[in-house]
Each structure stands twice: as C-alpha cells, then as structure tokens.
C-alpha cells in the first residue's frame, strides 16, 4: 500500500505575512486533521512517545482524532501537557516526536505538532477548557511557583489539580514569560497564550503579576508567609553581549528589548500603544538561533527595508530550527554568513552607522560538533547598517540566587538540581531554562512535571 502524503498546514502568502503580525502558519481544518490522523500506523512500540519531553500519549490522541472524537483527544493530551495550543506551535517536533515516527523511515512522519495544535485550538474554540477541569478537594497546603513561563504553568496546573493552594508569581505585568514577551505574535498569538493560561485560573491558581521574587519578596519570606514549597521557573532572562566596543550606541537593541517592545508592549501598534520602537532601513541581527530569526522577521514586519542575519559560521551550523530559517528566508531575510562583528561604529550623535567585521572560514569541529569559525587575516570590512539587534543568547537572572545563597548554581549561573528537580535549599525546586540553560518549551514543561511530582511526594512523605 502506498504511503499517503503528509497533510501540511497552510501558510499565509509571503506578501500578506510581512505586512502584518497575523499568524503565519494556519492550522489544520477538521477534515485535514482527520485525514492526517488516519495516516498514523498505531505501531505497538510507539517510538514517538519516547521523543516527547512530556511523554504525551501521541498514538492515543491521534487515534481519537481519526475517530472524530476531539474531546477525548484533548483529554489524552491534557493528561501530560497543559498547553497543547502553545506546544503544538512552538515545540521542535521535527527533531523530537516526529523524528522518531516509524513513517519517517519510509516516507514523511505524522504531523504530530500540527495535530496537537489542532486539538488545542479546537478546545479553545469550543470552550471546553473550563468544563474539563478535574480537581481533587483543597488540601490547604500553599505552594509558590515563581515565573509564569512554560515550566511554571506546568507545575502550577499539576499541583492545583492535586488540591494545592498555588500562587503563581510573575515579575512582568502579564503572565506567560517568554511566551508573552519573547515569541512573536505571528508565531504564537497572544490570544492563544491567554486562553491557555485561563486554564490555571479555572484551577483556582492565584496569579500575581508585578511581583519580583528577590525584591518584592525573598524566598525566605515566602516560607515565612506559609508556603510549604517554592518552585523556581525563572528562565534565562539576561541577554548576552558580544563585549566589543560601541555596544551602548543608540539603535543597538538586545533581542529581548526589541521583542519585548514589540510583543509585550505592542510597539507595532504605536502610537495607539505608547511604547515606540525605532528601525532604520538596514537592520543587522547578530546571531543564528531561533531568537535571531524571530527578531529578523519582526524587523521586516515593522517596515525595515533590508534585514540581515549576521552569523559567524555557515548556514549549516546555525542553531535555528530549519522551519524557522525557511520562514525567514521566504520572507526576505538575507544571510550575511561567516562574519564576525568586532566593533560597532557610530556617528557624532552616538547612533550606530556600521559594524566592523572580520570574514571567517570554517575549521575543524569544536566541542559542539559544529565546525569552528576561524578569522581570516586582514579581512576587516565595514558592514553599513543603521539598526543592530544582538541575539547571541542568554544567561540566568542572578537576582534570586544572589539574595538566597543557599541555592547553589553552576558556572553558567544555572541552578543545580538533582534528577528530581530539588535544589540545594530544602523546599525549593527548579525547572525550565533556569536549570537547563536555553532549552525548548517542551523540555521546560517536562522538568516542570518532574518537579511537581517531587513536590507532591516530598510533602506527602513529610520531607518538607
């Protein structure tokens, strides 16, 4: 029997995409979802589940879609994953569950991400999120969850369902962490994030925005205030710099500032919204990861004439996911490869006018397995730009760990945990990027699930 072709999600035409912040990838219709679900072999060893960082029962929910029983599909996903409409959009399925799919060997893998998103969107559209709440009676034990990104959401939901009185603290004015401030609207509509977070409200999680743990309250004060356990899911929020001259020039943004202004503060709607953003006609985004792609695609939509990704290795070594790079290139983002910035140049008004760069060539593979970039002697040149966005990575915010020395961190500043997500301080647990470094939404949820299991167990066993 010939294997049917995979049903792909449709995308907005490029010319429509770059004029707005509307979502680029359109979801599957019911009929498309069923057609795709029917391709699943329902193989007995289900390798896809191994590829899922949260252990979703993938074949089971796909079977339900094929049977047009979307509610059952939703319930199956929700057992392991609280935010399917989000993970369906921003998990790297291509290298995870779909890479393990048996069909991968003989044709195209099942579009697991697209199907998960379909179910998540269906639940939002049908308003079943609220109805499908199952909760055990309150046990009057207070737990604090710090940070409302993916890992915090997972922990808060799990513990609330078990009857805990959960408070979710968020430092910014909107819950969601990087889902809200970092990932652009055209990849993850904020309405979707809001709907998924509403689930926590239905579970009676007390979401307190504008609270900076480490400043507004310390960890010790949380315990004094009656919290039995504290989960830290504070992410890696501090942007890295190149440490080259001229970084403080005007019109040089960190990707975080650029994306925060656009996503969180809605600068793309200025002056309806008060926060401005400034873009010139030629933008350089430094870095080759997903955040660099997000920033470059955002810059295009804000009306920048030309947008370049400046990356020191070649396209092959880029850490960005393939689908992100494809989208960026389709939309007109240009690549300035094998280029290493060494100095920013500004005018008398301290506005950036160019980047002095070195040309690179690739040598032997380094520790990351990617070929090492080596500068070519006397290859300096000036890359003229009027806006720069630095997207070369992040490190953890040290606010909590410096005010709470009991919590041990590694050389990178990430919190050290045992395999059950316990930190070195009794009653304090951690998950997500703050223990993993820069990871994915799925992995963050995965560690959150480990932490919530441990917290529940430690409390039941009287360890904390």
């Amino acid at each position, binding site marked *: 029997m010939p294997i049917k072709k995979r049903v792909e999600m449709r995308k907005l035409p490029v010319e429509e995409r770059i004029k707005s912040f509307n979502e680029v990838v359109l979801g599957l219709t019911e009929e498309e979802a069923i057609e795709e679900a029917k391709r699943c072999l329902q193989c007995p060893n289900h390798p896809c589940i191994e590829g899922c960082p949260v252990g979703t029962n993938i074949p089971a929910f796909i079977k339900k879609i094929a049977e047009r029983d979307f509610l059952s599909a939703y319930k199956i996903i929700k057992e392991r994953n609280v935010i399917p409409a989000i993970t369906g959009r921003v998990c790297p399925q291509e290298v995870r569950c779909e890479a393990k799919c048996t069909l991968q060997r003989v044709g195209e893998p099942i579009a697991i991400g697209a199907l998960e998103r379909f179910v998540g969107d269906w639940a939002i559209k049908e308003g079943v999120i609220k109805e499908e709440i199952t909760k055990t009676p309150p046990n009057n034990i207070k737990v604090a969850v710090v940070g409302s990104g993916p890992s915090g959401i997972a922990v808060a939901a799990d513990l609330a369902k078990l009857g805990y009185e959960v408070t979710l603290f968020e430092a910014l*004015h909107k819950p969601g962490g990087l889902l809200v401030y970092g990932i652009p609207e055209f990849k993850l509509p904020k309405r979707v994030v809001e709907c998924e977070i509403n689930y926590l409200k239905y579970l009676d999680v007390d979401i307190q925005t*504008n609270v900076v743990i480490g*400043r507004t309250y310390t960890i010790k004060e949380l315990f004094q205030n009656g919290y039995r356990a504290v989960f830290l899911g504070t992410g890696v929020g501090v942007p890295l710099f190149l440490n080259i001259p001229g970084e403080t020039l005007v019109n040089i*943004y960190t990707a975080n500032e650029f994306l*925060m202004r656009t996503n969180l503060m809605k600068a793309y709607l200025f*002056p309806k919204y*008060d926060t401005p953003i400034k873009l010139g006609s030629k933008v350089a985004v430094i870095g080759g990861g997903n955040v660099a792609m997000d920033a470059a695609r955002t810059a295009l939509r804000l009306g920048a004439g030309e947008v370049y990704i400046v990356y020191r290795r070649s396209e092959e070594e880029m850490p960005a996911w393939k689908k992100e790079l494809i989208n960026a290139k389709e939309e007109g983002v240009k690549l300035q490869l094998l280029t290493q910035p060494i100095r920013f140049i500004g005018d008398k*008004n301290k506005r950036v006018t160019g980047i002095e760069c070195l040309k690179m060539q690739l040598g032997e593979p380094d520790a990351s397995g990617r070929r090492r970039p080596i500068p070519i002697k006397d290859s300096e040149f000036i890359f003229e730009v009027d806006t720069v966005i630095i997207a070369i990575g992040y490190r953890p915010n040290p*606010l909590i760990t410096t005010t709470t020395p009991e919590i041990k961190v590694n050389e990178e500043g990430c919190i050290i945990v045992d395999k059950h997500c316990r930190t070195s301080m009794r009653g304090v647990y951690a998950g997500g990027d703050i223990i993993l470094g820069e990871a994915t939404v799925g992995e963050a949820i995965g560690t959150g699930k480990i932490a919530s299991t441990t917290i529940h167990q430690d409390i039941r066993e009287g360890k904390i």
Partner: protein
Amino acid sequence: MNQILDKRELAPRIKEIVVYNPKIASKVKAGQFIVVRVCEEGERIPLTVADWDREKGTITIVFQEVGVSTYKLGKLEDGDVITDMVGPLGNPSEIGLFGTVVCVGGGVRIPAIYPITRELKKAGNKVISIIGARSKESLIYEEEMMKVSDELRITTDDGSKGRKGFVSDELRDLLQSGLKVDRVITVGPAIMMKVCAEITRPYNIKTIASLNPIMVCGMGMCGACRVEVAGKTRFVCFEGPEFDAHEVNFDVLLMRLNAYKAEEQVALKKFLEEGVRSHANQKES
C-alpha cells in the same frame, strides 16, 4: 491596590501622588524605584520612590508631565487606580557614616534624593544639601530637604530664589572654600550629574550618581537601560541605579535618553489632541 489616595500639584506640571501598594511600601528603601504602567496601552516607566509609609502601605511618587505616560499619570485623580506597579527595583543606596556629605538634587529629581538625604542624616553624617530648579515656582521639596539637612542651599536658573545659577556652581564654590567633603551624591538631570562629576573629580571625592535612563522591563532582561561605566556595559535597573559618577560615560546616557525624541513627540501630540482620560483607570482592581 495601586489606588491613588492623595494628589498634589507641587509646581506647574509637577505632581505628587500617594499610592496604596503595601507590597512595595513594606520593602522599599532609599534609592530604589518602581516601574509603572499607567493603563493598558501604556509604556513601562521607571519612577523613583520619594517617600513611603509602611504602616499605611503607601508610597509617594513625584513626576513631571513631559511625555504621554507622565501626562496620563497626571490625569489620574484620587481614587483612580494605576494599572501596574512593580517594585521595589534597583539596589538601595549605600548608607553609612561617611562624615560630611553633600547631596545635590536638581529639578523634578529632588524628591528622589530626599529619602537618601534623610537616611544619610539619620546615619550621623553632616549633610549639606544643594537643590536647584529653573525658578522659584518650579522649586519643589524645599521644606522636606530642609528637615533632613544640616544646611540647605538653593539655586535657581533665573535667580528668583537663592543663588542665581546652577547647583553645580554652588557645589564648585563649596569645594573651593576648602571644606572637607567625604562624599557627594547627585540626583538630577543627566547633564547636571555630569557637570557635578567633573567638579568633584579633581578633588577625588567619592561621587555617586543615580542614573535615570530609559527602561522597559526594569528587572535586568531587556538592556534598554544599559550604560557605560568604567568602560563596561552595565544595566542600571539591576546593577544600579547608583554608580560612581566618575566612571559613568554621561555622553552615552544623554544620547540614549534622546533616542526616541521624535516618537515621544508624536505620541504626546496625539494624546493632547485626543485629550481623553483613559477609562481603563476608572475601574477598581
């Protein structure tokens, strides 16, 4: 939460509000700031806390209406609610027994130096304060500063009160008089702090400036507030706001403060033309 309990106009376009926020009030220390978002469409703007009452759970903020956000804030009346307030942010001022301390405050930032001055006095320092404004009408927090200083000197640009000139002129003369000064704290417009730093530099007097850059997050994530201090990139929001004034590159700070001039004017013009009071603030939360 975030309800305005009292409002005063201290000078034309300069307003003082007392806001109920026990979380911030119970924690804030001299030198720290908060980030405010006035309404749903609003920017996040940093404002220094001028005073607090831990028992009543209130904080006092002084601001000048210069851009759309401060204009919107100025429109709010008693009972209105500020959509978002977060803090306290930044590191508290270093308070210790230094000896003779000169506190130099300028314009709308005099209330920001007020709690620092008060704590330095409490710590046993001899405190000489120099405050200045454009004119007698725009001089604020004179009485408050008087109470917490051993000596208060006043300057105005037009000479309508105190000495005619800038606070920096008064500081220069004070140092030239041979008085032994152990520390200078300067809180004011960037250009004022820059001049003060240059005046104290030849005397090798430890000089602290509380910087006031544009911020977005206020908690170390975005880097909008970064400045160059001793040749290094530093975040004012979580490594500051106070730095050794002799190490700060004020030219960079000044240029970065002007980065959005054109956009700020567009937004303000639109706001003033619409002249509507945001209904988002009418509701209680």
